[in-house]
Protein backbone atom coordinates (compact mmCIF):
# COMPACT_ATOMS: atom_id res chain seq x y z
CA UNK A 1 0.00 0.00 0.00
CA UNK A 2 2.74 2.35 1.09
CA UNK A 3 4.93 1.47 -1.90
CA UNK A 4 2.03 1.80 -4.35
CA UNK A 5 1.16 5.23 -2.94
CA UNK A 6 4.75 6.46 -3.34
CA UNK A 7 4.86 5.05 -6.85
CA UNK A 8 1.68 6.91 -7.80
CA UNK A 9 2.65 10.20 -6.18
CA UNK A 10 6.00 10.27 -7.97
CA UNK A 11 4.76 8.67 -11.18
CA UNK A 12 1.68 10.75 -12.00
CA UNK A 13 3.44 14.10 -12.50
CA UNK A 14 6.31 12.42 -14.37
CA UNK A 15 3.88 10.68 -16.74
CA UNK A 16 1.88 13.91 -17.14
CA UNK A 17 4.99 15.84 -18.13
CA UNK A 18 6.34 13.17 -20.48
CA UNK A 19 4.30 10.43 -22.19
CA UNK A 20 0.98 12.25 -21.72
CA UNK A 21 2.24 15.28 -23.63
CA UNK A 22 1.71 13.91 -27.19
CA UNK A 23 -2.02 13.64 -26.32
CA UNK A 24 -2.34 17.33 -25.48
CA UNK A 25 -0.13 18.53 -28.32
CA UNK A 26 -2.63 21.16 -29.51
CA UNK A 27 -2.82 24.94 -29.37
CA UNK A 28 -6.60 24.98 -28.80
CA UNK A 29 -8.53 25.23 -26.59
CA UNK A 30 -6.66 28.09 -24.98
CA UNK A 31 -6.54 27.98 -21.19
CA UNK A 32 -6.27 31.42 -19.55
CA UNK A 33 -5.06 32.59 -22.95
CA UNK A 34 -2.20 30.07 -23.09
CA UNK A 35 -2.10 27.46 -25.87
CA UNK A 36 -3.25 24.07 -24.49
CA UNK A 37 0.19 22.42 -24.68
CA UNK A 38 1.90 25.20 -22.72
CA UNK A 39 -0.99 25.45 -20.25
CA UNK A 40 -0.82 21.66 -19.62
CA UNK A 41 2.90 21.74 -18.88
CA UNK A 42 2.55 24.86 -16.68
CA UNK A 43 -0.34 23.24 -14.78
CA UNK A 44 1.73 20.17 -13.92
CA UNK A 45 4.69 22.30 -12.91
CA UNK A 46 2.40 24.13 -10.47
CA UNK A 47 0.83 21.00 -8.95
CA UNK A 48 4.01 18.89 -8.72
CA UNK A 49 4.95 20.40 -5.31
CA UNK A 50 1.64 19.05 -3.96
CA UNK A 51 2.57 15.54 -5.12
CA UNK A 52 6.04 15.80 -3.60
CA UNK A 53 4.46 17.12 -0.40
CA UNK A 54 2.26 14.01 -0.41
CA UNK A 55 5.37 11.85 -0.84
CA UNK A 56 6.91 13.49 2.21
CA UNK A 57 3.74 12.81 4.22
CA UNK A 58 3.66 9.16 3.19
CA UNK A 59 7.34 8.89 4.12
CA UNK A 60 6.68 10.66 7.45
CA UNK A 61 9.23 13.31 6.55
CA UNK A 62 6.98 16.24 7.48
Amino acid at each position, binding site marked *: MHARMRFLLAGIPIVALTIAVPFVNRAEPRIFGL*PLLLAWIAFWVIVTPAFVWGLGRVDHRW
Partner: protein
Amino acid sequence: MVNAVSSLGIVFTVVVGTILFALFSLRRIAMSPQEYIVGGRGFGAVFLWVLLAGEIYTSFTFLGAAGWTYGFGAPAFYIMAYGTVGYIFGYFLLPRIWQIGKERGLLTAPDFFSARYGNKPLATFAALVYAVSILPYVTLQLSGLQIFLTYAGYGHVDAQLGAIISFVAIVLFVFATGLRGTAWASIIKDALVIGALLFVGLAIPIQFFGSPVTMFDQMMRAHPSALVLGSATAPKGTIWYVSTVLLTGIGFFMGPHSVAAAYSAKDASVLRRNAMLLPVYQLIMLLVFFAGFSALLIAPGLTGTAVDQSFLVVVQRFYPSWVLGFVCAAGALCSLIPSTALLLSAASILAKNIAGDLFSIALSDRNRVILTRTLVAALGLGALVLWIALKTTLVSMLLLYYNGITQFAPAFFLGFFWRRTTTAGVATGLIAGITLAVFLASRSIAPFGINPGFIALTLNVTLAITISLLTKTKEPAI
Protein backbone atom coordinates in the same frame (compact mmCIF):
# COMPACT_ATOMS: atom_id res chain seq x y z
CA MET B 1 28.23 56.22 -27.11
CA VAL B 2 26.48 57.87 -24.14
CA ASN B 3 24.09 54.92 -24.13
CA ALA B 4 26.99 52.47 -24.08
CA VAL B 5 28.58 54.25 -21.12
CA SER B 6 25.41 54.19 -19.04
CA SER B 7 24.47 50.58 -19.74
CA LEU B 8 28.03 49.25 -19.38
CA GLY B 9 28.34 51.35 -16.22
CA ILE B 10 25.34 49.51 -14.79
CA VAL B 11 26.77 46.11 -15.74
CA PHE B 12 30.10 47.02 -14.15
CA THR B 13 28.48 48.36 -10.97
CA VAL B 14 26.31 45.27 -10.59
CA VAL B 15 29.17 42.80 -11.08
CA VAL B 16 31.49 44.64 -8.69
CA GLY B 17 28.64 45.19 -6.23
CA THR B 18 27.79 41.47 -6.24
CA ILE B 19 31.41 40.51 -5.54
CA LEU B 20 31.66 43.07 -2.71
CA PHE B 21 28.32 41.98 -1.24
CA ALA B 22 29.48 38.36 -1.18
CA LEU B 23 32.86 39.28 0.31
CA PHE B 24 31.27 41.31 3.11
CA SER B 25 28.68 38.63 3.82
CA LEU B 26 31.33 36.01 4.50
CA ARG B 27 32.15 35.82 8.16
CA ARG B 28 35.35 33.91 7.70
CA ILE B 29 37.60 32.70 4.94
CA ALA B 30 37.76 28.93 4.81
CA MET B 31 40.99 27.00 5.14
CA SER B 32 39.57 23.46 5.48
CA PRO B 33 38.46 21.49 2.41
CA GLN B 34 35.09 20.84 4.08
CA GLU B 35 34.55 24.59 4.37
CA TYR B 36 36.01 25.63 1.03
CA ILE B 37 34.51 22.93 -1.20
CA VAL B 38 31.20 21.97 0.45
CA GLY B 39 30.54 24.98 2.68
CA GLY B 40 31.10 23.07 5.92
CA ARG B 41 27.93 21.04 5.21
CA GLY B 42 25.97 23.81 6.88
CA PHE B 43 23.79 25.25 4.10
CA GLY B 44 20.17 25.90 4.95
CA ALA B 45 17.17 26.15 2.66
CA VAL B 46 17.96 29.47 0.96
CA PHE B 47 21.58 28.72 0.09
CA LEU B 48 20.57 25.31 -1.21
CA TRP B 49 17.79 26.90 -3.21
CA VAL B 50 20.13 29.27 -5.04
CA LEU B 51 22.85 26.64 -5.50
CA LEU B 52 20.50 24.01 -6.90
CA ALA B 53 18.60 26.55 -8.97
CA GLY B 54 21.87 27.98 -10.25
CA GLU B 55 21.92 25.21 -12.81
CA ILE B 56 18.71 26.53 -14.40
CA TYR B 57 19.73 30.12 -14.94
CA THR B 58 23.06 30.04 -16.65
CA SER B 59 23.59 32.39 -19.59
CA PHE B 60 23.00 29.40 -21.84
CA THR B 61 19.42 28.90 -20.67
CA PHE B 62 18.79 32.62 -20.49
CA LEU B 63 19.84 33.12 -24.11
CA GLY B 64 19.30 29.62 -25.44
CA ALA B 65 15.77 29.08 -24.10
CA ALA B 66 14.53 32.36 -25.57
CA GLY B 67 16.45 31.55 -28.75
CA TRP B 68 14.81 28.12 -29.02
CA THR B 69 11.40 29.71 -28.47
CA TYR B 70 12.15 32.16 -31.23
CA GLY B 71 13.66 29.61 -33.61
CA PHE B 72 11.68 26.38 -32.91
CA GLY B 73 8.70 27.37 -30.73
CA ALA B 74 7.12 24.63 -28.60
CA PRO B 75 10.18 22.31 -28.33
CA ALA B 76 11.58 24.94 -25.94
CA PHE B 77 8.82 24.00 -23.47
CA TYR B 78 10.84 20.93 -22.55
CA ILE B 79 13.08 23.20 -20.47
CA MET B 80 10.22 23.94 -18.06
CA ALA B 81 9.23 20.27 -17.86
CA TYR B 82 12.60 18.58 -17.37
CA GLY B 83 13.58 20.53 -14.28
CA THR B 84 10.28 19.60 -12.67
CA VAL B 85 10.81 15.91 -13.48
CA GLY B 86 14.37 16.33 -12.19
CA TYR B 87 13.16 17.56 -8.79
CA ILE B 88 10.86 14.57 -8.37
CA PHE B 89 13.84 12.25 -8.87
CA GLY B 90 15.79 14.65 -6.64
CA TYR B 91 13.39 14.06 -3.76
CA PHE B 92 14.59 10.44 -3.64
CA LEU B 93 18.20 10.93 -4.73
CA LEU B 94 19.49 14.08 -3.00
CA PRO B 95 18.98 12.94 0.63
CA ARG B 96 20.85 9.70 -0.16
CA ILE B 97 23.75 11.61 -1.72
CA TRP B 98 23.83 13.88 1.31
CA GLN B 99 23.75 10.95 3.73
CA ILE B 100 26.66 9.04 2.22
CA GLY B 101 28.52 12.35 1.86
CA LYS B 102 28.10 13.11 5.54
CA GLU B 103 28.92 9.58 6.76
CA ARG B 104 32.08 9.25 4.68
CA GLY B 105 33.17 12.91 4.58
CA LEU B 106 32.84 13.09 0.77
CA LEU B 107 33.87 16.27 -1.05
CA THR B 108 33.45 15.63 -4.78
CA ALA B 109 31.20 13.72 -7.15
CA PRO B 110 33.83 11.03 -7.95
CA ASP B 111 34.19 10.46 -4.19
CA PHE B 112 30.78 8.83 -4.39
CA PHE B 113 32.22 6.20 -6.73
CA SER B 114 35.02 5.40 -4.27
CA ALA B 115 32.58 5.26 -1.37
CA ARG B 116 29.86 3.15 -3.01
CA TYR B 117 31.94 0.89 -5.23
CA GLY B 118 35.34 1.02 -3.53
CA ASN B 119 37.00 0.91 -6.92
CA LYS B 120 39.84 3.31 -7.68
CA PRO B 121 39.94 3.02 -11.50
CA LEU B 122 36.18 3.68 -11.67
CA ALA B 123 36.50 6.75 -9.44
CA THR B 124 39.46 8.01 -11.48
CA PHE B 125 37.57 7.49 -14.73
CA ALA B 126 34.60 9.42 -13.33
CA ALA B 127 36.94 12.18 -12.14
CA LEU B 128 38.44 12.56 -15.61
CA VAL B 129 35.07 12.64 -17.39
CA TYR B 130 33.76 15.24 -14.94
CA ALA B 131 36.87 17.42 -15.16
CA VAL B 132 37.16 17.26 -18.95
CA SER B 133 33.50 18.03 -19.54
CA ILE B 134 33.48 21.09 -17.28
CA LEU B 135 35.92 23.21 -19.28
CA PRO B 136 33.80 23.54 -22.44
CA TYR B 137 30.83 24.33 -20.22
CA VAL B 138 32.76 27.24 -18.70
CA THR B 139 33.90 28.45 -22.11
CA LEU B 140 30.27 28.46 -23.24
CA GLN B 141 29.49 30.78 -20.35
CA LEU B 142 32.27 33.06 -21.58
CA SER B 143 30.64 33.22 -25.01
CA GLY B 144 27.37 34.17 -23.31
CA LEU B 145 29.16 36.84 -21.32
CA GLN B 146 30.62 38.31 -24.48
CA ILE B 147 27.17 38.53 -26.08
CA PHE B 148 25.75 40.45 -23.10
CA LEU B 149 28.70 42.84 -23.03
CA THR B 150 28.48 43.40 -26.79
CA TYR B 151 24.84 44.44 -26.46
CA ALA B 152 25.45 46.56 -23.35
CA GLY B 153 28.19 48.40 -25.26
CA TYR B 154 25.96 48.98 -28.32
CA GLY B 155 28.79 47.55 -30.40
CA HIS B 156 31.15 50.39 -29.43
CA VAL B 157 33.47 48.51 -27.12
CA ASP B 158 35.72 45.46 -27.25
CA ALA B 159 33.45 42.94 -25.56
CA GLN B 160 36.10 40.21 -25.60
CA LEU B 161 38.37 42.37 -23.45
CA GLY B 162 35.44 43.09 -21.14
CA ALA B 163 34.67 39.38 -20.88
CA ILE B 164 38.29 38.62 -20.02
CA ILE B 165 38.45 41.28 -17.30
CA SER B 166 35.19 40.30 -15.63
CA PHE B 167 36.06 36.60 -15.82
CA VAL B 168 39.45 37.15 -14.18
CA ALA B 169 37.71 39.13 -11.42
CA ILE B 170 35.26 36.31 -10.76
CA VAL B 171 38.02 33.66 -10.74
CA LEU B 172 39.91 35.66 -8.13
CA PHE B 173 36.67 35.91 -6.20
CA VAL B 174 36.07 32.16 -6.04
CA PHE B 175 39.80 31.66 -5.39
CA ALA B 176 39.29 33.73 -2.24
CA THR B 177 35.89 32.54 -1.06
CA GLY B 178 35.04 29.00 -2.18
CA LEU B 179 31.50 27.64 -2.25
CA ARG B 180 30.16 30.00 0.40
CA GLY B 181 31.08 33.01 -1.75
CA THR B 182 29.37 31.43 -4.75
CA ALA B 183 26.20 30.92 -2.72
CA TRP B 184 26.09 34.53 -1.51
CA ALA B 185 26.69 35.87 -5.01
CA SER B 186 23.97 33.56 -6.38
CA ILE B 187 21.40 35.28 -4.19
CA ILE B 188 22.00 38.60 -5.95
CA LYS B 189 22.17 36.85 -9.30
CA ASP B 190 18.82 35.15 -8.91
CA ALA B 191 17.09 38.31 -7.66
CA LEU B 192 18.37 40.27 -10.63
CA VAL B 193 17.50 37.54 -13.12
CA ILE B 194 13.92 37.36 -11.87
CA GLY B 195 13.66 41.14 -12.23
CA ALA B 196 15.08 41.07 -15.76
CA LEU B 197 12.80 38.20 -16.80
CA LEU B 198 9.72 39.89 -15.38
CA PHE B 199 10.64 42.81 -17.57
CA VAL B 200 11.37 41.02 -20.84
CA GLY B 201 8.61 38.45 -20.31
CA LEU B 202 5.79 40.76 -19.17
CA ALA B 203 6.62 44.40 -19.94
CA ILE B 204 7.50 43.70 -23.57
CA PRO B 205 4.32 41.72 -24.45
CA ILE B 206 2.18 44.25 -22.55
CA GLN B 207 3.72 47.23 -24.31
CA PHE B 208 3.67 45.77 -27.82
CA PHE B 209 0.53 43.61 -27.75
CA GLY B 210 -1.51 44.69 -24.73
CA SER B 211 -0.92 41.45 -22.78
CA PRO B 212 0.74 38.03 -23.14
CA VAL B 213 -2.72 36.68 -24.07
CA THR B 214 -3.08 39.00 -27.05
CA MET B 215 0.52 38.18 -27.93
CA PHE B 216 -0.59 34.53 -28.20
CA ASP B 217 -3.60 35.64 -30.32
CA GLN B 218 -1.13 37.08 -32.79
CA MET B 219 1.04 33.96 -32.59
CA MET B 220 -2.04 31.85 -33.43
CA ARG B 221 -2.52 33.86 -36.60
CA ALA B 222 1.11 34.31 -37.64
CA HIS B 223 2.87 31.10 -36.47
CA PRO B 224 0.30 28.53 -35.27
CA SER B 225 2.66 25.60 -35.82
CA ALA B 226 5.24 27.12 -33.42
CA LEU B 227 2.84 26.54 -30.51
CA VAL B 228 2.79 22.74 -30.84
CA LEU B 229 5.36 19.97 -31.23
CA GLY B 230 5.95 18.36 -34.59
CA SER B 231 4.60 14.89 -35.43
CA ALA B 232 5.89 11.87 -33.52
CA THR B 233 9.09 11.06 -35.38
CA ALA B 234 9.82 14.55 -36.72
CA PRO B 235 13.01 16.27 -35.53
CA LYS B 236 12.03 17.87 -32.22
CA GLY B 237 8.64 16.12 -32.47
CA THR B 238 6.76 14.44 -29.65
CA ILE B 239 9.05 11.40 -29.37
CA TRP B 240 12.01 13.70 -29.13
CA TYR B 241 10.21 15.69 -26.44
CA VAL B 242 9.35 12.68 -24.27
CA SER B 243 12.82 11.12 -24.52
CA THR B 244 14.55 14.44 -23.90
CA VAL B 245 12.50 15.33 -20.81
CA LEU B 246 13.12 11.88 -19.32
CA LEU B 247 16.83 11.93 -20.14
CA THR B 248 17.52 15.44 -18.87
CA GLY B 249 15.22 14.98 -15.87
CA ILE B 250 17.12 11.85 -14.81
CA GLY B 251 20.42 13.63 -15.41
CA PHE B 252 19.35 16.84 -13.70
CA PHE B 253 21.51 16.39 -10.59
CA MET B 254 24.40 14.52 -12.21
CA GLY B 255 26.59 17.59 -12.68
CA PRO B 256 29.56 17.58 -10.28
CA HIS B 257 28.52 20.96 -8.87
CA SER B 258 25.01 19.62 -8.16
CA VAL B 259 26.43 16.66 -6.25
CA ALA B 260 28.65 19.07 -4.28
CA ALA B 261 25.58 21.22 -3.58
CA ALA B 262 23.82 18.14 -2.14
CA TYR B 263 26.82 17.46 0.14
CA SER B 264 26.69 21.05 1.37
CA ALA B 265 23.19 20.79 2.89
CA LYS B 266 22.97 20.94 6.66
CA ASP B 267 20.48 18.05 6.74
CA ALA B 268 18.46 15.82 4.43
CA SER B 269 15.22 17.62 5.15
CA VAL B 270 16.54 20.86 3.61
CA LEU B 271 17.08 18.91 0.38
CA ARG B 272 13.61 17.33 0.42
CA ARG B 273 11.95 20.67 1.00
CA ASN B 274 13.92 22.18 -1.86
CA ALA B 275 12.93 19.30 -4.13
CA MET B 276 9.31 20.01 -3.25
CA LEU B 277 9.41 23.78 -3.80
CA LEU B 278 11.90 24.29 -6.62
CA PRO B 279 9.47 23.30 -9.41
CA VAL B 280 7.65 26.57 -8.70
CA TYR B 281 10.82 28.31 -9.75
CA GLN B 282 10.53 26.65 -13.16
CA LEU B 283 7.42 28.71 -13.81
CA ILE B 284 9.71 31.66 -14.45
CA MET B 285 10.57 29.90 -17.71
CA LEU B 286 7.11 30.97 -18.90
CA LEU B 287 8.45 34.52 -18.99
CA VAL B 288 11.35 33.40 -21.16
CA PHE B 289 8.88 31.79 -23.59
CA PHE B 290 6.81 35.00 -23.65
CA ALA B 291 9.98 36.99 -24.39
CA GLY B 292 11.00 34.64 -27.21
CA PHE B 293 7.58 34.65 -28.90
CA SER B 294 7.31 38.45 -28.51
CA ALA B 295 10.71 38.89 -30.11
CA LEU B 296 9.61 36.66 -33.00
CA LEU B 297 6.62 38.92 -33.67
CA ILE B 298 8.46 42.21 -33.11
CA ALA B 299 11.78 41.46 -34.79
CA PRO B 300 11.29 38.56 -37.22
CA GLY B 301 13.91 37.29 -39.61
CA LEU B 302 16.82 36.44 -37.30
CA THR B 303 18.50 33.17 -38.24
CA GLY B 304 21.32 30.89 -37.08
CA THR B 305 22.95 31.74 -33.76
CA ALA B 306 21.45 35.25 -33.90
CA VAL B 307 18.14 33.83 -32.60
CA ASP B 308 19.81 33.43 -29.20
CA GLN B 309 20.03 37.19 -29.00
CA SER B 310 16.47 37.88 -30.14
CA PHE B 311 15.14 39.52 -26.97
CA LEU B 312 18.33 41.54 -26.52
CA VAL B 313 17.74 42.97 -30.00
CA VAL B 314 14.27 44.09 -28.90
CA VAL B 315 15.49 45.60 -25.63
CA GLN B 316 18.36 47.42 -27.33
CA ARG B 317 16.16 48.79 -30.11
CA PHE B 318 13.14 49.92 -28.12
CA TYR B 319 14.20 50.63 -24.53
CA PRO B 320 16.44 53.14 -22.71
CA SER B 321 20.04 52.23 -22.04
CA TRP B 322 19.56 51.72 -18.28
CA VAL B 323 17.00 48.98 -18.96
CA LEU B 324 19.42 47.29 -21.32
CA GLY B 325 22.12 47.74 -18.67
CA PHE B 326 20.13 45.86 -16.03
CA VAL B 327 19.11 43.07 -18.41
CA CYS B 328 22.73 42.63 -19.52
CA ALA B 329 23.96 42.80 -15.91
CA ALA B 330 21.60 39.94 -15.01
CA GLY B 331 22.89 38.02 -18.02
CA ALA B 332 26.51 38.70 -17.11
CA LEU B 333 25.96 37.33 -13.59
CA CYS B 334 24.28 34.29 -15.15
CA SER B 335 27.51 33.64 -17.01
CA LEU B 336 29.90 34.42 -14.19
CA ILE B 337 28.38 32.88 -11.06
CA PRO B 338 27.64 29.37 -12.44
CA SER B 339 31.19 29.41 -13.83
CA THR B 340 32.53 29.77 -10.30
CA ALA B 341 30.62 26.71 -9.07
CA LEU B 342 31.84 24.72 -12.09
CA LEU B 343 35.48 25.79 -11.72
CA LEU B 344 35.37 25.01 -8.02
CA SER B 345 34.05 21.51 -8.60
CA ALA B 346 36.58 20.80 -11.37
CA ALA B 347 39.43 22.07 -9.20
CA SER B 348 38.34 20.07 -6.17
CA ILE B 349 37.99 16.92 -8.29
CA LEU B 350 41.53 17.29 -9.64
CA ALA B 351 42.95 18.13 -6.20
CA LYS B 352 41.14 15.36 -4.31
CA ASN B 353 40.57 12.51 -6.76
CA ILE B 354 43.55 12.82 -9.06
CA ALA B 355 46.34 14.49 -7.06
CA GLY B 356 45.27 13.17 -3.67
CA ASP B 357 43.81 9.69 -4.23
CA LEU B 358 45.96 8.73 -7.20
CA PHE B 359 49.33 10.34 -6.47
CA SER B 360 49.11 11.00 -2.71
CA ILE B 361 49.77 14.71 -3.17
CA ALA B 362 48.38 17.37 -0.84
CA LEU B 363 46.75 15.06 1.68
CA SER B 364 46.66 17.43 4.64
CA ASP B 365 43.67 19.74 4.94
CA ARG B 366 45.75 22.85 4.57
CA ASN B 367 47.60 21.66 1.47
CA ARG B 368 44.42 20.35 -0.12
CA VAL B 369 42.80 23.78 0.11
CA ILE B 370 45.92 25.46 -1.22
CA LEU B 371 46.03 23.05 -4.18
CA THR B 372 42.30 23.43 -4.87
CA ARG B 373 42.66 27.21 -4.89
CA THR B 374 45.67 27.11 -7.17
CA LEU B 375 43.74 24.85 -9.53
CA VAL B 376 40.72 27.18 -9.52
CA ALA B 377 43.01 29.93 -10.78
CA ALA B 378 44.81 27.64 -13.25
CA LEU B 379 41.61 26.12 -14.68
CA GLY B 380 40.03 29.56 -14.93
CA LEU B 381 42.99 30.75 -16.94
CA GLY B 382 42.95 27.54 -18.98
CA ALA B 383 39.27 28.00 -19.83
CA LEU B 384 39.98 31.58 -20.87
CA VAL B 385 42.84 30.56 -23.18
CA LEU B 386 40.78 27.70 -24.69
CA TRP B 387 37.92 30.10 -25.28
CA ILE B 388 40.05 32.74 -27.02
CA ALA B 389 41.83 30.13 -29.12
CA LEU B 390 39.04 27.78 -30.15
CA LYS B 391 35.70 29.49 -29.50
CA THR B 392 33.39 27.72 -31.91
CA THR B 393 34.80 24.21 -32.03
CA LEU B 394 34.38 23.94 -28.28
CA VAL B 395 30.61 24.01 -28.53
CA SER B 396 30.69 20.51 -29.93
CA MET B 397 32.63 19.38 -26.86
CA LEU B 398 29.56 20.30 -24.86
CA LEU B 399 27.98 17.15 -26.22
CA LEU B 400 30.27 15.35 -23.84
CA TYR B 401 28.90 17.35 -20.95
CA TYR B 402 25.21 16.88 -21.61
CA ASN B 403 25.30 13.38 -23.02
CA GLY B 404 28.22 12.16 -20.93
CA ILE B 405 27.32 13.38 -17.45
CA THR B 406 23.81 11.90 -17.61
CA GLN B 407 25.37 8.47 -18.09
CA PHE B 408 26.46 8.63 -14.44
CA ALA B 409 22.81 8.40 -13.40
CA PRO B 410 22.56 4.55 -13.21
CA ALA B 411 25.62 4.46 -10.94
CA PHE B 412 23.80 6.75 -8.51
CA PHE B 413 20.23 5.47 -8.80
CA LEU B 414 21.05 1.75 -8.93
CA GLY B 415 23.83 2.24 -6.40
CA PHE B 416 21.42 3.67 -3.86
CA PHE B 417 18.26 1.75 -4.55
CA TRP B 418 19.34 -1.74 -5.71
CA ARG B 419 21.62 -3.76 -3.46
CA ARG B 420 22.63 -6.21 -6.20
CA THR B 421 24.41 -3.47 -8.19
CA THR B 422 28.04 -4.39 -8.86
CA THR B 423 31.07 -2.40 -9.87
CA ALA B 424 31.46 -4.42 -13.06
CA GLY B 425 27.87 -3.73 -14.08
CA VAL B 426 28.01 -0.02 -13.43
CA ALA B 427 31.43 0.39 -15.08
CA THR B 428 30.43 -1.50 -18.24
CA GLY B 429 27.15 0.42 -18.55
CA LEU B 430 28.89 3.73 -17.96
CA ILE B 431 31.62 3.23 -20.54
CA ALA B 432 29.24 1.82 -23.16
CA GLY B 433 26.74 4.62 -22.47
CA ILE B 434 29.23 7.46 -22.78
CA THR B 435 30.77 5.98 -25.93
CA LEU B 436 27.42 5.47 -27.64
CA ALA B 437 26.07 8.88 -26.54
CA VAL B 438 29.06 10.80 -27.85
CA PHE B 439 29.15 8.75 -31.06
CA LEU B 440 25.44 9.22 -31.84
CA ALA B 441 25.41 12.88 -30.87
CA SER B 442 28.53 13.77 -32.84
CA ARG B 443 26.97 12.17 -35.96
CA SER B 444 23.53 13.68 -35.20
CA ILE B 445 21.96 10.22 -35.36
CA ALA B 446 18.48 10.21 -33.80
CA PRO B 447 16.39 7.20 -34.92
CA PHE B 448 12.62 7.89 -34.78
CA GLY B 449 13.43 11.30 -33.35
CA ILE B 450 14.60 9.73 -30.06
CA ASN B 451 17.21 11.80 -28.23
CA PRO B 452 20.53 9.93 -28.74
CA GLY B 453 21.45 10.37 -25.08
CA PHE B 454 18.29 8.46 -24.18
CA ILE B 455 19.26 5.52 -26.39
CA ALA B 456 22.68 5.49 -24.73
CA LEU B 457 21.11 5.63 -21.27
CA THR B 458 18.86 2.69 -22.12
CA LEU B 459 21.90 0.64 -23.20
CA ASN B 460 23.74 1.78 -20.07
CA VAL B 461 20.94 0.68 -17.70
CA THR B 462 20.39 -2.61 -19.52
CA LEU B 463 24.09 -3.50 -19.32
CA ALA B 464 24.39 -2.32 -15.72
CA ILE B 465 21.49 -4.53 -14.62
CA THR B 466 22.40 -7.58 -16.72
CA ILE B 467 26.06 -7.62 -15.73
CA SER B 468 25.23 -6.87 -12.09
CA LEU B 469 23.02 -9.98 -12.09
CA LEU B 470 25.82 -12.05 -13.62
CA THR B 471 28.56 -10.86 -11.26
CA LYS B 472 28.92 -11.20 -7.51
CA THR B 473 28.34 -8.33 -5.13
CA LYS B 474 30.94 -7.56 -2.55
CA GLU B 475 29.54 -6.66 0.85
CA PRO B 476 27.21 -3.77 0.01
CA ALA B 477 29.09 -0.56 0.65
CA ILE B 478 26.03 1.31 1.80
